[in-house]
């Protein structure tokens, strides 16, 4: 009883810790909504107010975004939160943070079910509560967090069903959880079915014996998925996303294919596909790079190896110990196979996309790494407890050292997250688009036309996306009106609504406009090209105080 109480106390303490690190200054950090967040938030408001997305689609299953399509779950749940809590930047991050907290008990329950060891489960939950990737992704709108939560619940229910004579309740629950998962994040459409097939094969005896009991929940799962399946078949847009991010878009692969070209068509077909297989395999294996996992995988800084990985550096020895522990653990053969399959399949989405690393697609595996590290922490503590003889002092010193190391590592992460990340990477969340949006609305009545050229950059120029969303959202522009007003213009990159034109500025021509406010960066209009400097009425800065944009009054 006392042991149970202390476990409950510990899991509550871990959850509280998780809440603290996820909700502390949530509205302020990250320092601005990125384009994904602002598009989803404005769409969510649009749905809540009008039942349609900003393009006028009624309760869509898939949300068109900027060069992208979003799965529905996150936007709808944010609509719900908007109706409950109202607007505000933090609204879009709430769902993610809530699921980020819920995942802690989910990991605990799942690990308890899988490995039947509550101390490993507690360790895994603890690591989940403080893992950099968990905190980072929980503090921004991120669909995959919810997805992982439901996957964990789904498999917990399945394991529970297996341990409780194929309980129908558990089987149906797992079908529901898996069904919801498929609507949360696109990559799960590939990984979850594969994982379920692998799970079925690993535990085939259970499924064969309980075939009748499992068929109905399986049918229920398929019915749940029918709208999604129909959508994938009938709407090519759903496939667009996977095509645009697939590994074949990688320029390095393109070069390799060029090198392998021959005059013989059959040989050419073979060598081309060989180049794709080789390249994909390398990319896949590279997802397991130690530097990426523990040093700079979250891409917080421009300082090479000085950064933050998805996992804490101090976790590295425990991950290794965890692997050794699981390998040498007697029994649990199927569970161990499942852990291995989860890790192998979970890395596929990240390994097969064109970006060198995409941690947001690998969260599933990082979650498993937390569980394995939890096993490592447990095995280490067990070995420490078994120390005998003259090493008694070590029993106190080593745990104290580990606690201090975890503390320093966590503090290092917070410094990186709250200080260095915004300093070094504010451009990549389109800072200072919010300030620009707020400023232009304050000047709304003074001009006939407001032009915004989102080409900008701290070190090199890039085109900021979703500027119209920032303008509409921060101007509290009614989505119903936006749905009617929003259109594409004739000029390069032009989108228009109300008196706003988001487009490329061509200064020799645009300088002669009258009663216009132009927001432009020095990349488009160098300071020297502006003859009358008094026309610059406002300067906007990146988070590191470098100049980002001017507001020019004409």
């Amino acid at each position: 009883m006392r042991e149970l109480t202390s476990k409950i106390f510990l899991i509550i303490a871990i959850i509280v810790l998780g809440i603290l690190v996820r909700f502390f200054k949530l509205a302020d950090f990250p320092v601005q909504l990125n384009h994904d967040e602002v598009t989803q938030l404005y769409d969510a408001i649009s749905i809540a107010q009008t039942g349609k997305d900003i393009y006028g689609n009624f309760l869509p299953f898939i949300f068109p975004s900027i060069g992208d399509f979003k799965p529905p779950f996150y936007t709808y749940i944010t609509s719900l939160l908007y109706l409950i809590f109202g607007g505000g930047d933090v609204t879009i991050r709430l769902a993610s943070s809530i699921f980020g907290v819920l995942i802690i008990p989910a990991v605990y329950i799942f690990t308890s079910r899988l490995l039947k060891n509550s101390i490993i489960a507690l360790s895994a939950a603890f690591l989940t509560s403080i893992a950099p990737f968990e905190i980072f992704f929980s503090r921004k709108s991120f669909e995959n967090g919810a997805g992982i939560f439901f996957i964990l619940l789904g498999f917990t229910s399945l394991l529970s069903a297996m341990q409780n004579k194929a309980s129908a309740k558990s089987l149906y629950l797992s079908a529901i959880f898996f069904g919801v998962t498929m609507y949360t994040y696109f990559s799960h459409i590939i990984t979850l079915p594969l994982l379920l097939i692998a799970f079925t094969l690993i535990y085939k005896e259970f499924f064969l014996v309980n075939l009748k009991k499992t068929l109905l929940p399986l049918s229920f799962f398929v019915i749940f998925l029918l709208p999604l399946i129909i959508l994938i078949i009938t709407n090519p847009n759903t496939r667009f996303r996977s095509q645009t991010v697939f590994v074949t878009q990688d320029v390095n692969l393109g070069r390799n294919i060029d090198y392998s070209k021959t005059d013989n068509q059959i040989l050419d077909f073979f060598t081309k596909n060989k180049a794709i297989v080789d390249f994909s395999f390398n990319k896949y294996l590279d997802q397991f790079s130690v530097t990426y996992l523990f040093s700079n995988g979250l891409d917080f800084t421009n300082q090479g190896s000085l950064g933050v990985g998805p996992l804490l550096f101090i976790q590295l020895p425990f991950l290794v110990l965890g692997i050794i522990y699981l390998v040498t653990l007697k029994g649990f053969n199927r569970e161990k196979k499942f852990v291995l399959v989860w890790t192998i399949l979970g890395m596929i989405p990240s390994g097969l996309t064109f970006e060198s690393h995409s941690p947001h697609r690998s969260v599933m595996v990082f979650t498993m790494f937390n569980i394995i590290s939890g096993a490592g922490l447990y095995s280490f503590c067990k070995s420490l407890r078994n120390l005998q003889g003259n090493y008694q002092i070590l029993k106190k010193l080593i745990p104290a050292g580990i606690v201090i190391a975890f503390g320093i590592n966590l503090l290092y992460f917070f410094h990186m997250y709250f200080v260095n990340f915004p300093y070094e990477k504010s451009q990549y969340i389109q800072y200072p688009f919010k300030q620009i949006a707020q400023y232009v609305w304050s000047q709304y009545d003074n001009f006939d036309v407001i032009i915004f050229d989102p080409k900008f950059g701290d070190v090199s120029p890039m085109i900021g996306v979703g500027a119209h969303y920032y303008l509409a959202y921060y101007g509290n522009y009614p989505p119903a009106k936006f749905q009617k007003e929003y259109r594409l213009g004739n000029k390069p990159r032009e989108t228009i609504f109300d008196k706003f034109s988001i487009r490329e500025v061509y200064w020799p021509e645009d300088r002669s406009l009258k009663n216009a406010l132009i927001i432009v960066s020095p990349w488009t209009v160098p300071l020297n090209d502006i003859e009358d400097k008094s026309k610059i009425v406002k300067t906007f800065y990146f988070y590191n105080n470098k100049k980002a944009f001017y507001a020019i009054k004409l």
Partner: protein
Amino acid sequence: MRFASNWLLISLLLLSFIIRLLPVDFPNLTGEEARISYRGYTLAKYGTDELGRRFPLIFNGLDDYHLPAVSYITMIGVMLFGKTDLGVRIPFVLIGTLVVFLTFAVAKFFDAGFLFRIISAFLVASSPALIFSSKTPNETIVLVFIFMLLFYLLVNSKNLWLIILTMLAATLTSKLAWFILLPFTFYIIWLFKLRRGILILSLGVVITTLAVLPFLTIPQAKRSLLENNFPIFSNSTIKNGIDTLRGQGMKEGWPDIVSRLLFNKSHFLFVGLLHWLSHFNPTIYFGQFDPNGKMGYSYLGGWVKFLLIPFILGLVTIFKKGDRKLKLILVLFLIFTYPTFFIYPKVSIEAITLIFPFMAIIIAFGFVQIMEFSKKAALLGIFLIIFELAINICNISPEFKSTNWIRPSWVEAPILDIVNFSKDNKTAISDDIIFDISPFIYWYSPFDLANNHLIDMDFPYKLRQTRIGKILIVGSENNFYNCALDEPTSILASKRDLAKVKKWLNLTYEMAVKKNIRIILITTQHIFLIQPYA
């Protein structure tokens, strides 16, 4: 049975030799390999190195000093087969083949079964990384051979003199050996509880000291060590990164003590540690060993892809069932690679390659597991190994294209042009036509070029030659000028220098192309302009 086993082993060795030897001119040499090749030739013919020094013990390279073993091994090949591809490569092909045999011999210390031993040897024979490094004059394959031999001699408690000679050979092959030799010897002595351990270790200390101390007397030795073996300490990006990140914290009002606690010189330790561990990235072993194609096939890992499965199985088997020796052999991975801690940010392919024969033993354990599970699966595995190896070795065209810069196959013809032309004329060649041009000029020259580049210093560091015979090597810092009537000069120009010449002569590239001839004579300027190759 014994007869069949012997024949199987002999066949494997023969096959290893053939795969390593053919095609004899593949891969093309790198600049450094061409330098060693030419050095082997001059040592064999004149008893001097390429700079005219008589049988030296330290040679000069573009990046660092070269220790003597590889150059003298190359010399032997040239003495036997002349200044040819075969001559400079065959000693390394033989050494690579001997590594296969040594793996067979060493594997018996872990499992005496013939099957296990022959699989280990087969894996080494088919390792793309070991095949590749056996095809050119380089330190790596020699070092792999020496450490395998040392392992065998130590564990077998063979002749002490042979052990001493092997240790000496290691210290004369690569600076990397200076760091690895003692921990390696100590570890093997400890692991196998060998007799005469203290004596052997003491001899190791003496031999290493004897190798290192004379090196340290060279004026640029410390710089060489710092830049090539301990570059982490001179890496300004880490120091700047620490200062930048700490400064940002201070600007944001974080307490100074916290910033100093989080961002300090201990980062060198963490960066070094992670860099060391990054040498265990699975991509290197099973995906892409060396993307540059310098030390391995550009499109192959150190092992073919399929072997990832038996490797994981082997590790699992060792952890579950293996004895102490087998488990502790994994520590060798750390011993071979620990010098990479200091070699940030470069990936040390050489250190990684040392692991391979021992890794083969682990993979062989996994392979035996597969065989026990299903013979068909094992046969399929062997087919996959041979298939992947064959399609990469037989189709080397992509390899030529992707290593065009570092292993240029096309450079021989233009170099022959310019060298022949230089017999009667002053000639120049851009230094960025390929990476490190001068050794290629020496190597491809059909006759011995007059070496007027003898230097004052005994041991010049990072020597970059700017003149070979009548050939001037033009760098980015050089400018063109009108020659006097009696000094016509021709240039094999890269794009960079052609642009300079065009600007200076007011000659358009289109004009040059229209002529469609290799040599354009511009008599008024007394300039021969050869069309660019790069």
